[in-house]
């Protein structure tokens, strides 16, 4: 309950920040729509020249694009702004005030900044997923649908855990402003199924920067490519990565010595 009240307080503050720049918000949404148009056009061009992409149909790729939108929302709406704030606060020492408050530090560091207009991506992503599933015949079984939903959430957890480890690294290497660029850089790979990538790239996006766990894997579950054990394995991996990440965070906090005070 307490956590929910805090979340809604963060939300209100960030809505006020957004309302200060109304024109910006509208322009940003327009640009966002333009890139969506671009993504659909590129799919159109690809499927103008072929009927399937490594076994994936157009509908499945549109649903994948929807999941990619959700991951993108997580990165651009939450991870990116909070990283900027966090990096600045480690450098100038204002992280002290965050740590002094009687709230879980990781929670505060993760949610104090939100780019509110990105909520728009949630609607867009959901729309694309539904359209995509319809287009590919809607042959998904209830088991596939449920494991798709669970794996989408757990994939986002993996990305979030990786982020925690990356920003916690700042405690050991103070000058580490590029900590999340690697995540941002490989994000673009989530638009297409990792199964078509050459082996080395598939390894990178599955194990090093697991974008594929958050985009390709849920879609594979939806297509019925994964059996129950595999779904459980992926859920287990995401739980484990979150546990490891929160351990790393705690160790990092202990290491932190403050910059100004």
């Amino acid at each position, binding site marked *: 309950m307490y956590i929910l009240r805090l979340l809604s307080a963060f939300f209100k503050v960030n809505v006020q920040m957004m309302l200060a720049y109304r024109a910006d918000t509208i322009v940003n949404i327009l640009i966002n729509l333009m890139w969506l148009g*671009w993504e659909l056009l*590129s799919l159109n*061009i690809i499927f103008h020249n072929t009927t399937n992409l490594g076994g994936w149909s157009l509908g499945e790729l549109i649903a994948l694009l929807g999941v990619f939108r959700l991951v993108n929302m997580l990165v651009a709406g939450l991870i990116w702004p909070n990283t900027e704030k966090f990096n600045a606060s480690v450098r100038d020492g204002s992280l002290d005030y965050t740590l002094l408050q009687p709230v879980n530090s990781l929670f505060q560091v993760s949610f104090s900044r939100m780019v509110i207009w990105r909520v728009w991506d949630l609607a867009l992503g959901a729309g694309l997923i539904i359209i995509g599933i319809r287009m590919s015949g809607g042959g998904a079984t209830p088991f596939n649908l449920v494991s798709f939903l669970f794996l989408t959430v757990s994939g986002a957890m993996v990305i979030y855990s990786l982020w925690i480890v990356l920003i916690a690294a700042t405690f050991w290497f103070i000058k580490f402003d590029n900590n999340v660029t690697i995540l941002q*850089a490989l994000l673009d790979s989530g638009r*297409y199924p990792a199964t078509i990538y050459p082996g080395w790239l598939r390894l990178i996006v599955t194990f090093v920067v697991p974008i594929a766990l958050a985009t390709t894997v849920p879609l594979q579950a939806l297509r019925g490519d994964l059996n129950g054990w595999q779904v459980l394995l992926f859920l287990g991996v995401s739980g484990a990565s979150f546990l490891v990440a929160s351990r790393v965070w705690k160790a990092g906090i202990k290491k932190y010595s403050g910059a100004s005070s």
Partner: protein
Amino acid sequence: MLHIYRRLWQVNWAEQWQYRANLLMYLLYWLVSPVVYLAVWITVANSQGSVNGLTANDFVTYYLTLLIVVQLTSDITIHLLASKIQDGTLSGDLLRPIHPILTNILVNNIAFKALTFIGLIPIWLILCLLFHPDFSSVTFSSLLLATPAIVLGFTTGFLLGSTLTCLAFWTTRVYAIGEFYTALVILFSGQFVPLQLMPPTIQRLAEFLPFQMFCYVPIEIILNQMPPEVMVRNYAVGVVWLIISMFLFNWVWREGVKRFSAVGA
């Protein structure tokens, strides 16, 4: 004048070296999309033998050449200049007796290019090992013929990018327009896919736009894929656009500086 450029080069080169870690990240960021598209088209080509006459090797050579060509023709003026107009720090540059864009911004662009290029070479060689391209169609004369196209592409891109950034004199912020422009460039330059695979309308439009000089034309010349008469026509279109962009830039700069109110400084 040459002396000024030499000194500016030293300053900008040193400045870029400071941010070499950022440069590597930028390179990585920038490499992902072409490699992903390459993987997409190899998959399509392999599943049906060829796409519109293009084999898997054609795609590999196209995208690997693209990595080098786009690095050479790309322009980062908006990142260097927009903030200066926005916060008014351009005032200091205007006091100097040299054109700020055609000296400092231009040299900064080139220094950035040179340094990222040094970083790109080892990564490019690794990608060659991974994708096994067959570059047998490339000859010394094709490289020679493509060099003016690359210079033309960079010059036009630089002038158009500067013109666009100068719109900040009127609008203060130009990043939204910049993003729209980037989308146009990706669409019409051949950066997403070789232009012959685009819908016919886009192909026709691209022939009359300056953007194919940034990417498609130099690549096709290097790979010896462009018939001489098409090449001549593309060069002609490119030169016309160079002249247009020179006039555009001159005009926007002259009118813009008159309006410049040095907000914030």
